[in-house]
């Protein structure tokens, strides 16, 4: 029976779909140690470490995909890998959040730097508005 020897695999990341198709086995770097998933595996959800995903397709060469972490879900007949696109770690994320906060503070302080650009832009908008006005007047006069 075909459904007992194959299963469907989807590998997706936030930015794009990486793999979708019928496979005979997949090996993944799970958080508690590497796992091999064959058809009729029991339902499982696990986090992934950064590492290599090995995909076996019947009658084809093995495929390798790099994942920088993510989640692996096994359902009867369907395996889903939600791959991260970035290396994730609690302290790394924390640092990034701090950076974003700092940027916000700088943006508030940095009134001067943006001022000229903002002013020039405002003038440009006004000029464009005037041009449109002139255009409209001209059409009315006709």
């Amino acid at each position: 029976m075909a459904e007992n020897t194959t299963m469907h695999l989807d590998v997706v990341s936030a930015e794009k779909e990486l793999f979708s198709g019928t496979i005979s086995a997949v090996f993944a770097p799970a958080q508690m140690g590497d796992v091999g998933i064959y058809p009729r595996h029991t339902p499982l959800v696990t986090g992934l470490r950064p590492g290599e995903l090995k995909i076996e397709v019947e009658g084809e060469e093995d495929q390798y995909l790099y994942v920088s972490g993510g989640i692996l879900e096994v359902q009867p007949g369907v395996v889903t890998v939600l791959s991260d696109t970035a290396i994730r770690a609690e302290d790394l994320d924390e640092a990034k959040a701090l950076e974003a906060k700092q940027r916000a503070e700088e943006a508030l302080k940095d009134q001067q730097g943006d001022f000229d650009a903002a002013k020039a832009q405002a003038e440009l908008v006004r000029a464009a508005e005037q041009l449109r006005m002139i255009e409209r007047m001209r059409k009315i006069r006709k």
Partner: protein
Amino acid sequence: MANEKEIRTQIASIKNTQKITKAMEMVAASKMRKAKDRMNATRPYAAKMRNVIGHLANANTEYNHPFLLDRDEVKRVGYIIISSDRGLCGGLNVNLFKAAVKDMQQWQEKNIEIDFCLIGAKATQFFKKFSANIVSQVSQLGDEVHLDELIGTIKAMLDAYTDGKIDRLYLVENEFINSMTQEPKVSPLLPLAAEDNDELKHHWDYIYEPDAKTVLDSLLTRYAESIVYQGVVENVACEMSARMVAMKSASDNAGDLISDLELAYNKARQAAITQEISEIVGGAAAV
């Protein structure tokens, strides 16, 4: 009547402007196509994720993640506002800010304070003027946005929610309807709306590694991030198509102006010639 030379320089300068707007239109058109592809490429991830979360939430009713809990009392709210970095894209950003400000009024009436997370230089410029409380900010993302660059900014807001600093989180973004229409949209991001889907009602006994809580935590964080990321990618597509339309109408306007000016130029030339002839004829008659 303006003299010939003046009109000629005016025509030349408008033609130059038209060249620029035409070039910008074409650049925006090709960038829009790429942005649309990228936008579509992000869809499967969110769809798959929603599926997995649905299964997990159904299988694990005993663990309630803060993202899934609706808090009755609202003391402070957060807004994530996605704008573009550059202008010259018609009313795209202004319409978005208007929609955001309008939505915020309901909180201001109740004296509820608002925290901001701003994505894009335009939003920063706009909300800075209101001395708004900006928690996190990111700009200069370029046309090809990577999730990597957004994680910190979003995390600042998600943490604020988990810590109870804010009780609601809204996402303000442009929705790409088609290349001519983009609509500002304000939608609640947190708490995550529970989806009642009959397809998800059947559930399996999962094995969790390391445990259900950890898995659900990281899933939900990623899900919230992916929604924001999708919004940012969609906004790029909106920006490009809005710019394309704005530049097209600018080029058309320039074309109209040029034809008007050319008419005026020809008239002025004719008038000058006629005058010259009548002067000669008048002169000859006097002799």
